[in-house]
């Protein structure tokens, strides 16, 4: 099964999403932490009212977290789930057939 082209494709699709996305959100978060430590002048710039760059940046971390969760869920539903279920059912039936044959 591991070398089945459909499994290889499933693995490729999963990895193609989760690894780049993990690197992206980690880098985005690291930028935020680094800015909090070393970019205080910029973080303190007031945009409007009592909203400064630091607050906006923080809120954007919330937004990106919610956003990535939604995007991933849609991606998984479209590109991963049916393939995974198909392969799983095949493996289960294969296993039952073998047991039945003994």
């Amino acid at each position, binding site marked *: *099964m591991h070398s089945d082209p459909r499994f290889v494709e499933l693995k490729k699709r999963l990895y193609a999403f989760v690894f780049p996305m993990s690197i992206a959100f*980690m880098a985005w978060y690291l930028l935020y*932490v680094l800015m909090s*430590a070393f970019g205080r002048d910029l973080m303190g710039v007031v945009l409007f009212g009592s909203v*400064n760059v630091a607050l906006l940046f923080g809120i954007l971390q919330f937004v990106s977290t919610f956003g990535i969760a939604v995007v991933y869920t849609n991606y*998984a539903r479209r590109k991963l789930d049916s393939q995974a279920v198909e392969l799983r059912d095949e493996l289960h039936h294969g296993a039952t057939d073998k047991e039945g044959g003994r």
Partner: protein
Amino acid sequence: MMLAQEAVGTVSDSSRIVTIVLFVLMIAATLGVTVWASRNTRSATDFHSGGRGFSPLQNGLAIGSDYMSAASFLGIAGMISLFGYDGFLYSIGFLVAWLVALLLVAELLRNSGRYTMGDVLSYRMQQRPVRTAASVSTLVVSIFYLLAQMVGAGALIALLLGIQPGQTFLGMDAPTAKIVGIVVIGLLMTVYVTFGGMKGTTWVQIIKAVILMAGAALLTLLTLSLYGFNLGALMSDAASASGQEGFLEPGLRYGVEVAGDPVQTMWNKLDLISLGMALVLGTAGLPHILIRFYTVPDSQSARKSVNWGIGLIGTFYLMTLVLGFGAAAIVGHEAITAQNAAGNTAAPQLAQAVGETIGGELAGSVLLALIASAAFAAILSTVAGLVIASSSSIAHDFYNSVLRKGRATGAEEVKVARLAALGVGVVAIVLAVFAQNLNVAFLVALAFAIAASANLPTLLLSLFWKRFNTAGALAGIYGGLISAVGLVFFSPVVSGRETALIPNADFAWFPLPNPALVSVPISLLCAVVGTLMSKERDFDKFAMLQVRALTGAGAEKAAKH
């Protein structure tokens, strides 16, 4: 606003009565659920994983419940109220961390494991050494986290009941009430887990999540209503009431710039980065969070429950932002620190002040009692989650796999798990009574740093690295565990400062209070070097693990009753 300030800090008898009635109601309800759950807990799957029959929403609530501990509810609101923006920084790390769990861990773990983190770590390794290591790191992380919650809880109960130093209530002075609080909470969590197993624990957590979210939402809305729902006005009021320059910017608590000392300033800033790293990498290595993914029927449900968790936790942290700024503006810095130096009672104090402003003294008492009860529920359910994680690991990883070589029956495993829950409960009560004066935030940060160093690198390598093997897993777990604990021991947290655990000695050669910046790379390095130094490799087993993890073939199914 000055009116409310004067009233805060004096807890009236009516408020205490309402608080105690609500506490008792909550204890009765949760014990009722536990009795019901104990009747439906027979197999090992029931005990460790609640029969795997919970819906994504139910598990999402329980995930939120495990995570939104009293420490994070009261601690973050308090930190925002005293240090402004820097408290918010904490919640951002705590939230973003869930993406690691969502993208890299939850689904694969659900498909490839059974009851514990050790199941996945040991899948293609030598069972006994790896499971022993997994069990050790589970216990260390859980005990530190448990101590943090219980120590905090003891202090909190004294404060929630409004027992001031020198005062007595029901014949208890503040120190006695602290100990009574620790013992009561310790006993309750032990009862929940021993009798109710994962089913009882999960329902206790669901109840808590609903109470906590409702309480926080009510207080948030009332606070905002005092400012005509103008968050900007609330924030500028908070900033001016705090009397501190830069209240709405990072830097008052973490990464503090010390004038004339560029070296210390640099250490402080590196420490901020180290803390950020522990927060974001620790979550997906917390054993009590990981085992939650086993309580749902399949990996798709695990994904959905993480999404519910992210939604709840994110909303909750946005509310704590309002509560923290609200407390800074309405209660005021002085009144908060007068009650508790770390600001842990800022949220309950805000409840009292807001209630009094809106509906007079009685409304203040009722709102205070409501928020105090939400905090009480928050303590109970988080500690129960930690106890079940520890007892499952002792019974499943250590007793069954290591001592009995996997030959114990389900019934034997459940019996041992129940005894283990009892043991963990007793140990936690005793340690917490002795550890009463430890800093709660330090204990939580340490638990996250250990989870980020000892557990997460090993977990990810075992899911994704083909060559990874037993020697690598052991080196990664023990290397991360020892470096995290060791670096904290030689940090300014333990010695060399007035605020340290041992203020009279100075052996602090490691300058960062948070070790993750160094200990996570050490753990990764140990894991890689350990792997390459050993010839063991099992590519077939890895292929099986991958097929199972990605497709769910052979994954544990929900129990049918």
